């Protein structure tokens, strides 16, 4: 839910609201999970004839605490990013990095094989590669 700014003279906040409103208005029928853009972790999704590739940009997370699940064609990435508490005499000048629990849900195409999943975490990016079913892969048909 996006609220109107409490400080209408804050131009940047107003611009941000305007941008979100415009985005929502352009999606005449957004997905049931809302407009996913802007969530944590940011995600890029692509595909090849053999697999579906998902990249989740989740830096600074212990890979063992990441929870990746596939259930009924829905992929869920969940976890928590903890920040070191600043010392008591310290001053926080800028505070932009995400902190806390997160969960992102992605619907996968119908032709994926839930048993052929491979997940790797390198340089703060979680790469999930989901294979497609053999039967769904393109085949050349020989003419008799």
């Amino acid at each position, binding site marked *: 839910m996006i609220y109107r700014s409490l400080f209408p003279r804050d131009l940047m906040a107003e611009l941000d609201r305007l941008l979100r409103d415009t985005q929502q208005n352009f999606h005449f029928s957004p997905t049931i999970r809302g407009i*996913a*853009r*802007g969530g944590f*972790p*940011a*995600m*890029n*999704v*692509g*595909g*090849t*004839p*053999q*697999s579906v*590739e998902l*990249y989740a*940009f*989740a*830096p*600074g*997370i212990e890979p063992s605490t990441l929870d990746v699940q596939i259930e009924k064609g829905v992929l869920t990435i969940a976890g928590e990013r903890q*920040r070191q508490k*600043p*010392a008591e*005499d*310290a*001053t*926080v*000048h*800028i*505070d*932009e*990095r*995400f902190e806390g629990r997160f969960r992102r849900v992605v619907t996968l195409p119908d032709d994926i094989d839930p048993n052929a999943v491979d997940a790797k*975490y*390198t*340089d*703060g*990016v979680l*790469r999930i*590669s989901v294979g497609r079913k053999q039967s769904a892969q393109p085949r050349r048909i020989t003419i008799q």
Partner: protein
Amino acid sequence: MSDNTLVKKQNARDEAALLPPVDVIEDASGITLYADLPGVPKEKLTLQVEADTLTIEGEIDLDMPGGIEASHAEVSLPRYRRVFTLSKELDASKVAAEFSQGVLKLSIPKAAHAQPRKIEVQVM
């Protein structure tokens, strides 16, 4: 349209880049900066201090299979850049950097003359 628009942008500084989110925390000894640069390998991270300007730049390098077609992209540019102006009490020659799992930690100490010291108040 003026002729200027035809001039090719050759300087790396002019290339479009993502703005990485940062945390900046100051304590008595100096400033600690954390920046999120996911997807940047260590060898493609560039840190530069020039006069009082600190530049953080990183190139994203993802391992992608051949023939991949993007269907949804939230990270739409392959590089990050962010520039900060340091203040003069910081000692730019002693910046220490750590980079792991896409998180950069920069420690910028305060110059010795700028370290806090208690000022005694004399009672006359």
